């Protein structure tokens, strides 16, 4: 970095550790061809050509370790292995869509601050790469679902219970003031609140990306899926989005949540990398999804480095957070622990939430041509998988322990976090097979009670 001294003589300050890491990561990332390889693999993917092989280690399969898995045929086991891949990468695609949006918003803040040009270039590059990743996960998922379940059969949603709540309905006030754009006013209010309560320099550091959306008359997107879409209630989603774009601290905090997502991903994707290497070393055929996983993990390693750098070190370059920013950061982190890290799935390895949410898709798998169970048989195997202790739970608890260790190392240095967040208190205390069996039993009973509705569904 070049600076000018008081005497107008140019001096060269030593490049900082953060700059070295940023520059090296960007240089290596731009020189790599992992994204292009993923794109090529995606275009060549045909389910028929990959359907007879496992797409990862057998333990990365839906229902692995449960009584159902033990009695399943080899073909069914392979399909459960494929379904695990597409389910996990469907979730990954949603979280990467979060990254696409928030990378752009936070890059707009770092651009406004100035002096972070290489970092901004790296973030732009990552955003482009995420597009390719999402497309690849979609393509493989789409082709696989269509081959296994036929078009739309698997994604058929739950029945509508009542009238749909539209956010566009007129209020009494808007009837009297028809020209008033309430959504736009609300967004402006969030912006003013965020700027006033943030540690940023007033409007000076407001995200250039958000400004460009305002100028084009576009709404701030609200994402309801992915890590952040699930953690943050829809009602405060826009406020959080505006916060990320209002100050360097909040922009940096986004990377703490991204780092959390990176570690959750790595916890299971590492196994695909090992599987790829095993196939390669033994000269065996490598199915396309395994290759996509392998190159995705390599591509994501740059993103993880940047998440770590910004969340652990770069935030120290800027003003300390205000009480409001500190509260929001801690609330989001706490909720993330509660929702995504403190449960224990009995059927989805390396997933740390209870299985209530998965009951319906699991039921669909069991009644689909993959198993062809009738209603009662499907419920029988679901109950055994979810409400009885089996190897799947014990294996998953090992995945959980490994992740706790990694997470603690990552977030311990963040001194603005509450102790319960820094020490991953919710995550650590929530992991009990007994507790999760109780929660699953409750959800399963509710599900089976509505069996008539399910039967007709």
């Amino acid at each position, binding site marked *: 970095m070049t600076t000018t001294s008081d005497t107008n003589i140019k001096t060269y300050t030593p490049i900082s550790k953060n700059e070295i890491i940023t520059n090296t990561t960007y240089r290596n990332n731009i020189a790599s061809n992992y994204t292009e390889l993923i794109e090529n693999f995606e275009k060549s993917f045909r389910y028929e050509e990959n359907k007879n092989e496992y797409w990862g280690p057998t333990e990365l399969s839906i229902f692995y370790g449960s009584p159902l898995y033990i009695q399943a045929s080899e073909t069914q086991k392979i399909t459960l292995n494929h379904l695990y891949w597409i389910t996990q990468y469907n979730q990954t695609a949603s979280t990467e869509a979060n990254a696409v*949006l928030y990378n752009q918003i936070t890059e707009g803040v770092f651009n406004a601050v100035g002096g972070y040009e290489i970092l901004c270039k790296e973030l732009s590059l990552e955003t482009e790469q995420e597009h390719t990743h999402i497309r690849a996960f979609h393509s493989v998922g789409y082709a696989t679902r269509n081959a296994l379940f036929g*078009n739309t059969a698997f*994604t058929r949603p739950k029945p509508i219970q009542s009238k*749909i*709540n539209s956010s566009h309905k007129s209020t009494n006030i808007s009837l009297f003031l028809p020209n008033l754009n309430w959504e736009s006013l609300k967004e402006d209010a969030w912006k003013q609140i965020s700027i006033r309560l943030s540690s940023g320099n007033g409007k000076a550091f407001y995200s250039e990306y958000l400004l460009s959306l305002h100028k084009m008359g576009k709404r701030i997107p609200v994402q309801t899926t992915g890590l952040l879409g699930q953690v943050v209630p829809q009602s405060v989603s826009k406020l959080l989005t505006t916060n990320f774009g209002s100050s360097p601290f909040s922009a940096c905090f986004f990377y703490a949540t991204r780092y959390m997502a990176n570690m959750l991903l790595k916890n299971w994707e590492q196994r695909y990398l090992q599987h790829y290497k095993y196939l390669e070393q033994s000269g065996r055929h490598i199915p396309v999804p395994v290759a996509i996983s392998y190159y995705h993990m390599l591509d994501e390693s740059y993103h993880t480095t940047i998440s770590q750098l910004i969340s652990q070190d770069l935030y120290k370059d800027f003003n300390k957070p205000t009480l409001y920013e500190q509260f929001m950061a801690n609330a989001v982190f706490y909720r993330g622990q509660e929702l995504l890290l403190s449960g224990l799935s009995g059927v989805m390895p390396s997933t740390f939430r209870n299985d209530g949410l998965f009951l319906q898709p699991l039921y669909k798998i069991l009644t689909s041509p993959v198993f062809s169970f009738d209603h009662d048989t499907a419920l029988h195997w679901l109950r055994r998988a979810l409400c009885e202790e089996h190897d799947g739970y014990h294996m998953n608890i090992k995945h959980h322990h490994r992740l706790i260790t990694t997470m603690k190392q990552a977030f311990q240095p963040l001194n603005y976090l509450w102790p319960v967040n820094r020490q991953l208190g919710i995550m650590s205390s929530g992991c009990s097979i007994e507790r999760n069996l109780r929660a699953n039993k409750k959800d399963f009973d509710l599900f089976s009670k509505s069996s008539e509705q399910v039967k007709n569904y």
Partner: protein
Amino acid sequence: MLSFLAIAIMLSNDVKVTPSTAEIESWLRQYLAKVLEISEQDIDNYANFDNYGLDSAIAVSLTGDLEEWLGRRINPTLLYNYTTIASLSENLAIEISNES
């Protein structure tokens, strides 16, 4: 020979559809009505996809089916950012016209 070529082009999967916002809205309404097994009249253009019980898996199917209909690839993040028929149609139409 020319007419044969023209027909071949028309029938090929490479034919790109450049629909208006209204046409995309109409396609989405029909699509959702079919998936949800409800009448098109019960579909609200301004209701969030979440309210219909559609989860992120639908984004995968919807993107794939939309791409087949349009004969072109679409920005895969559109369905995450714009979660109503109205907002998705508007932004998709803008994107398509920018590409054309």
